[in-house]
Structures are given as C-alpha cells and as structure tokens.
C-alpha cells in the first residue's frame, strides 16, 4: 500500500466557487492509502508546491494526487515538485477537477461529488503506480517541410538560416504554391510573383535547403527527434541534371490538349510542361497520361529536339529515405468543388468563375494574357457581379461552416483593380458582412467603395441563370433597401470557400497528427500552442491549420520554424517512460500487436523462456521503447493481455473505473 498525499487546489475561485474543496479533503482523507490531505488556493504557486515537498518529507509519502486543472497544464509542474521532494515523478497523478468538473457544472453538491469521485480514481491509480524512469533519445538535426508554397518556403528559409538542413517536399513540379497563381496581393496591390519569386530563388539557392519537387511523402515512421521518412520522387521523365530549361520541348510537343492546372483548367498545356515561367526548378515534367509516346509508343519529339539529351522515358519513381528531427506541415489549400451550388450556374456557364480563376484571367501569364474577358465569347464585360461566401459560413452540409477569411479582401482587391483598369465596367458585390480586421484592411475596402465606386449590396444571391442573349441573370436581395434585385451581368465571380488540400488527410494519418472535421490540422492548444500539432515534433504552417492570408501565413511559418529550431537545437530528448511492455510468459507470438503498432516499435524474436520450470524457445514480442509512443493500441489488441502499458496498466485503468463505479 502506498502512502498517498492528496492536494486539492482552489484555483482561486475557478474550482472553489463550484467545488466544496474542504469537503473533498475531508472525504478523500478516509480513502485507502491516503495519509495526508489538504487544500490550498493555488497549488501551482511556489508556496503550493512547497506544501507537497513538506508533506512528502513529514509524512514520508510515496505517492501524490493533485486535484487541480488538466494534467496538460500542470502535470509537469507537480512531477518536478515531487522529484524535488525525492519522489519518482511518475508517482504523481492529477485529478482534473477544473476542466472536467468545476467549469462544466453549476451545482456545488453535484460538482463536489464528482470531484471526490475523480480524486478517488486518481488515488486508486496511484496505489498501483510504480516508479518509472525516462530514457533519452537523439535528435536528428534536419527538418522536413511538406509543401512548397509560401508557408513551406518561409519555414524552410527560417530554419535554414538558423543553420539546420531542411528538405522541402512539393508534390507539383514547382515550388510556389497558391501564391504563385495570384496576380496582385492585398492590401498593397504589389504583384504576387514579384514578391514570391525572390523567396523561391532564395530557397533554391540556399545551401542548407534541398527541394524535392514532383515528390510526395510515402511513409513516416519514428517519433519526435528521430523521424524516418520515405519520399517518393515521381518520375519526371526529364533528367534534372541535364535539362537547361530552354523550353523547346514544350513548344514542339504535339500533345497540347491537357488542361493547364496552373491556370485552373481555363486553357491547355503541352504534355511536357513546366507549370509557369518562373517555376523552380525550371525543369519540365512529362504528364504520362497525356504524352503520345507513353500512350502509343510513337512520337518521341521532345527527345529529338532536346539538345541536352535530358529526356528519359524510362525514368522510374525513386524512393529517398531520410531522417528528420522535426516535420513541418505546410500543405495549403484548394477551393471547394462547386457541385453543391447549382444555383450559381458554375457548371453551366463559362462566364461564372471562381475568384482564383479570375486571378489567372487578370494575370499577364494567364489564359487571356491579362485581359479581362468573358471565357464564352472573348467579349469585354460591362457588368460584373461578385458573390461572397460561396460555400463559406454555411449553416447546412452543402458548404463549410467556417469563414474562409480571405474572400472579403481579395474581392475588394478584384473590384478595385477592375474599376481601375476598366472604368467602364460596373462592379456589384453581394455580401453577408464585409470582414476587414487587419492592418490597413478596412481602409483598403473603403477605398474600393469610396474612391473606386464599387457597388456593395448587403444580401445574398439566390440564383444565377444563363440567358439566351449570353448574359447571366442574377437574382439577389438587397437587405438594406428590403428589395429584390434582378441584374443582367456579363460575368459572375464566386468567392469560393477554401478547404485544406485533399492530400492532408493522408499526411495527417502518416504523421498521426489530428485533423478536425473540416480537415484542418489541429493545434496542440488553440491559443497557447497554435503552430504545434499535438503530435510531438510536428509543426503547422499556413492554411493547413486554418484559413489565413499571406501576411498571417508568413508570420505563422516563421513561428513554426522557431518551434522546429527549438527542437533541433537540442541534442537529446527525454523519452516518455509510459511505453508498452510485454509479459513474455503470456505472449502467444501471434504478431497482432506488431500489425497494429503505428510506430513500428514491436518486433518478434525467438527467445528461450522459463515458464514455471518449462524451458522452451518461444516467439515473443519485443518493444523498442525509443520508438513506442505509449498509444496503447497493442494492449487492447493482445488477446492474452500480455502487452501492458507502463504507467497506464490494465490494472490501473480497471482500478480507476472501479473507484468511479464504487
């Protein structure tokens, strides 16, 4: 039996206003094993911690229960305090009577009863606790950044500038990401490429940065400080070392009917292509689905015209295995599919476009060479309608519940640019609210309204109908004037909601990083740890974590880099001792635990065991405690109960449940 001290925290009034802490002390002091119980206003204060130290010494305690806030807040604090008192830090358990109790209850009697129950569970567990010793693991001084958009580039640059090696993995043929598709940026209207390409060049030229484009992460094993990652370098069919980027292959390629992804499918490209002029690396790839050589075996024009002899039809995907200490996810976003929004006629009319498509139309390198024209007939529009919140702030399941955050500003930008360049074009914006929190944002929007005469209408559009005369009938409402509006427009632009890039689900699964219902990666703490994933060693950069604009993305990219640098600067990490441990005498050797282990921590070996006098060689599970993250998947899979989790043993959990059900 342990000698347990229970310390009940008031947390000022956070706990004490709802939980009768004196009553909790009185009840738990009669629990088996408890030989000291007291309450204190702030257990986490230095004076509170001293209470633990004194009691451990005076009463010769062997275990400590602190009834306070979530262990995520102060478990480490109290473990250190116990250690200072000479106890093993893993002899401390926290009963969370704040988040799990006082904050969610109003009735003091009920809350007090629950606090007692939670304390009992923790006491029951401590009774079965055993001292555990944390080990150490090494840190590989290299970072992986997944995604080569502005978020990934900025994170990589910041980590590299601190002196650490960084690899960027980008799945498209070039780094640059969504920002490279934008024409101008708000609120300063500087050209997106002009500010992005220097960063791309800097990343490419940086001696500490290595860029894998047209590559994807295939497999991730290991853990914080020591990840092993398989990177699939997809076959480019062009030898990057030989290619000079002259572009002749793309000119001569006879297959020119593939949709141009960079221009959002608004025009076509050749089968061998670089996505855009400033692409890094400036090495084309062959789209094997479109290439005549790959489809029929005949053609080979690019190979003939390539002076450098860089074309290599036999190139295969290559797997590169590399070790990393830290991984930053910067996978970015895409616009949502508009299949659920038939009322806006996006699929019926070429003149209904998304805002990202408008960016390409406005861009000098875009499908119309920067001329604002209707894609149906090439005519210049006279009447343009912008519809806000298409798929954002949606209360039903058609769209997204969240605000995409960037649309109000880019629509103001588009409206302003169009009015500036084509003063004869009328621009109407239908909106729910105009949201402009941000430095110089509201001023920017006001300029669109006041100086550029953009017509903002508060109200949503119910329907866009293509008319026989080629125009689009927009039916909307003006909530301020309380009237219906029918407007014939030449073009309609939809401020389409953004969502995390689809590949993030697979990446999150590989990293065991959690994602929310909208596929945004979850932060370790929404306020206090916004750039860290709950999975140690995984950091979040850019829109993969939540909608944000370029300045916010760059700021977060830097923050993620700092967190990664903080990790890489360490030589050793303390490992969690709460790892799985097999009982070799109970182990059947069935391999089910190894199959379910997400960390590859379990292997099997033939080992001589002495089972109560029977000596035999058995196939038994072995856990690599450096790889084990203590998830417990093996313990619930093992039919014989041979696998147990140290610090969270089956017995301890059952004891807690029993204490709660008593």
């Amino acid at each position, binding site marked *: 039996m342990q000698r347990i001290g229970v310390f009940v925290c008031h947390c000022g009034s956070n706990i004490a206003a709802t939980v009768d802490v004196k009553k909790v002390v009185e009840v738990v002091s009669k629990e088996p094993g408890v030989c000291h119980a007291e309450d204190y206003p702030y257990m986490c204060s230095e004076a509170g911690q001293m209470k633990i130290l004194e009691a451990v010494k005076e009463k010769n305690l062997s275990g400590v229960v602190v009834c306070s806030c979530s262990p995520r807040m102060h478990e480490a604090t109290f473990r250190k305090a116990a250690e200072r008192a000479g106890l093993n830090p893993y002899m401390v358990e926290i009963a969370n009577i704040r988040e799990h109790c006082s904050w969610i209850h109003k009735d003091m009697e009920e809350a007090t009863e629950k606090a007692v129950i939670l304390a009992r569970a923790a006491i029951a567990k401590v009774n079965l606790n055993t001292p555990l010793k944390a080990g150490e693991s090494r840190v590989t001084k290299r970072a992986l950044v997944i995604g080569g958009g502005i978020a990934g580039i900025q994170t990589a640059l910041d980590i590299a500038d601190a002196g650490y090696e960084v690899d960027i993995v980008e799945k498209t043929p070039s780094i640059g990401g969504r920002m490279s598709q934008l024409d101008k940026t708000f609120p300063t209207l500087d050209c997106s490429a002009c500010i992005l390409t220097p960063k791309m060049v800097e990343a490419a030229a940086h001696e500490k940065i290595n860029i894998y484009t047209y590559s994807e992460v295939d497999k991730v094993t290991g853990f914080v400080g020591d990840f092993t990652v398989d990177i699939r370098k997809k076959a480019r069919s062009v030898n990057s070392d030989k290619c000079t980027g002259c572009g002749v292959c793309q000119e001569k390629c006879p297959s020119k009917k593939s949709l141009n992804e960079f221009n959002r499918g608004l025009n076509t490209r050749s089968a061998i292509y670089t996505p855009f002029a400033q692409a890094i690396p400036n090495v084309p790839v062959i789209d094997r689905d479109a290439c005549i050589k790959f489809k029929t075996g005949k053609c080979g024009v690019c190979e003939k015209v390539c002076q450098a002899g860089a074309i290599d039809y036999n190139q295969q995907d290559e797997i590169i295995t590399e070790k990393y200490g830290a991984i930053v996810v910067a996978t970015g976003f895409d616009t949502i599919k508009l299949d659920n929004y038939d009322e806006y006629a996006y699929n019926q009319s070429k003149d209904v476009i998304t805002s990202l498509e408008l960016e390409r139309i406005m861009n000098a390198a875009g499908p119309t060479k920067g001329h604002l024209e209707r894609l149906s007939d090439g005519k210049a529009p006279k009447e343009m309608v912008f519809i806000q919140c298409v798929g954002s702030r949606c209360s039903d399941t058609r769209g997204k519940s969240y605000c995409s955050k960037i649309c109000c500003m880019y629509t103001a930008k588009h409206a302003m640019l169009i009015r500036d360049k084509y003063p004869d074009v009328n621009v109407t914006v239908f909106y729910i609210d105009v949201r402009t929190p941000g430095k110089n944002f509201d001023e920017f929007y006001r300029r669109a309204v006041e100086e550029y005469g953009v017509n903002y209408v508060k109200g949503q559009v119910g329907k866009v109908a293509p008319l026989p005369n080629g125009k689009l009938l927009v039916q909307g409402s003006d909530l301020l004037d309380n009237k219906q509006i029918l407007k014939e427009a030449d073009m309609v632009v939809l401020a389409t909601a953004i969502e995390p890039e689809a590949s993030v689900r697979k990446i999150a699964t590989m990293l065991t990083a959690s994602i929310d219902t909208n596929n945004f990666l979850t932060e370790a703490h929404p306020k206090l740890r916004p750039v860290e994933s709950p999975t140690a060693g995984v950091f979040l950069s850019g829109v993969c974590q939540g909608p944000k604009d370029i300045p916010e993305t760059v700021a977060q990219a830097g923050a993620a880099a700092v967190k990664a640098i903080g990790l890489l600067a360490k030589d050793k990490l303390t490992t969690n001792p709460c790892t799985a441990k097999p009982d070799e005498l109970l182990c*059947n050797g069935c391999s089910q635990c190894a*199959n379910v282990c997400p960390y590859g921590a379990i292997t099997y070996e033939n080992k001589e065991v002495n089972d109560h006098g029977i000596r035999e060689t058995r196939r038994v599970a072995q856990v690599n405690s450096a790889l084990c993250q203590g998830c417990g998947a093996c313990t619930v899979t093992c039919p014989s109960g041979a696998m147990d989790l140290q610090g969270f043993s089956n*017995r301890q959990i059952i004891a807690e449940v029993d204490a709660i059900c008593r």
Partner: protein
Amino acid sequence: MQELVNRAKELLANGTVQRVLGWKAGDMAYNPEPSYFETEADLSDFVYDAFCGANLSKYMIEASKKEGKTLVFLKPCDSYSFNQLLKEHRVDREKAYIIGVGCKGKLDIETIRKQGVKGIEEISGASMDDACDTLKIKTIYGDKEVSYQSAMLERCHVCKGKDHVVYDEVIGESRDTVDGERFSEVQRIESMTPEEKFLFFQKELSKCIRCNACRNVCPACSCRKCVFDSNKFDSAQKANVDSFEEKMFHIIRAFHVAGRCTDCGECSRVCPQGIPLHLFNRKFIKDINEFYGDYTAGEDIDAEAPLTHFEFTDREPNEERG
C-alpha cells in the same frame, strides 16, 4: 476410411511422420474422440465417419512442439483454422503433414435426438464410403430412419465450401451441403428491439455453466494463458453475482476472436447447454464484411486482416453504415 488408415501406415512406415492425429471410437456409436497414434498397430483403433466433426487444427499447436512431423486429417473447413493459426505463428507448417479429407457434412447427435431418436445403439449410413442420404439407426426402441441432411451440424448447412486451403494431399470427395443462409439468424436478431435482444441473450447465456468447453475447443482461443485463467487480471476466479454474468465471458471471448474466427462452429457443437455461441462470432464476421469488404479468416495466409490493418480508404468509425 481404410484408405486413410493405409496412407497413415505408409507415412509412418517410411518415416515421413512420427505420429498420426485422428480419431478412435468413443463409448457410444456417435462420439468418436480425437487421438494420437504412434505405431501402425495403434491404427487398428482408428475410426473415421460422419461423427468425426472435431476440428483437429488446434491440436497442432501442441503437435508443433513435438519431435518430427504429425500427420493430421483436416476437413475443408478445418484447413481454414489451421491456416489462421499458421498466420498467427501458432503452428509450424514444417511439423504438419496434412491430409485433406473429403467431407459430406458432419452429423450432430443433438439434432438426431431432437427428432425423437433415443436409446441409440448403432448407426449406419454415416461412414465415409456411404451415400450419406439416410441414416439407419438401431435403438433400444426399435429401428429408426433419419435423413442425413436433417441430422447435420448447423455449420454444414452454411458450409464454406469444398476447397482445402492448406494440405499436402487430399483423400476423398466432398459434396455440397449448403441449404441455408449463413447470416439469416444474425439478421433476425439484428431486427429485434434492444429489449428483445437483451431477453434473447439473457435466455441463452443464462444457461452457461462456464465449463469452458467452447473456449477450450476454439482454435482462435489458443492463448498460452487465457485472461480468464490469469491471476494478472481481476477477471479470473470471480464469483458470479447472477446467472447472466457469464455474458461477459462470452462477449469478451467474441471480441478476442473477432477478425480471427473462421466460423468453424466448434463452440456451438461442444456446448453442453446448446447455446448458439457461434452467433456472436458470426455477427462480427457480418459486420467486418460490411465495413471492410468480404473477408474469411484463414482463407489466405498473406491477406491483411481487417482488424489489425488499416488503409487510408478505410471507413471511419463515425461514418454511417451503408
């Protein structure tokens, strides 16, 4: 049957195997029991007929630890169990010489008794060489006839098929015995209200006397030490509070064999209380098939098991069932 004995003698004689795992006659006409035979002379006690329903694959766990090879006779459905044990590294393929025996459907004495046949002295029509259409039964009350099909074990009415999934050689023909829907009983229970389900399982599981026969015969229940016997857990040696408490044993057992159970039906065959225990396992099999696509444990040793393997395309637990 003689063909099996002859072949067993040959394999013993030429040293291919050290022992034979088969059946010898029991104390009644209908209860032959699994037995080892070490010599040719021993084999004079060997029997094989339609009452030899026992799945011998589980015996191969212990046989794998013995010196030399053991000859074992496995029906098509038994071979699935052997394969599953092989997948779990519980048996050694090198220690087994498998003769796949043809199967015409195995008989269930309880089903025969339910047809009013009592005081059985002799049964004919149940040997491997018979047509297996009609059973002629000599009883102390006179001669009776029972159709073979009506006397089969439940599992034979929903037989997995005639293929042996693992064998060294095959002796004897199998025949189609399927005349039932495998999941119809599960579906019937699924369609009950929660209260009806509870009453159904309460009625069935309250019969349990915890003789552990189901566990001991089950090829998937092959732990060195069962959690219900291990003093490491509080589940062992616990006195029951009420007659329905054994439900926990059966539910936990069903979870432990989920995804590994080959639906061999031995649990229900050996239950002295006639509890349809296989229904738990079959419910799991049905759910697994619906969630992750059709999967038969033991069919393919290299196939990924649905409950210990994941794909990115796997259904999420919160997705509604289709």
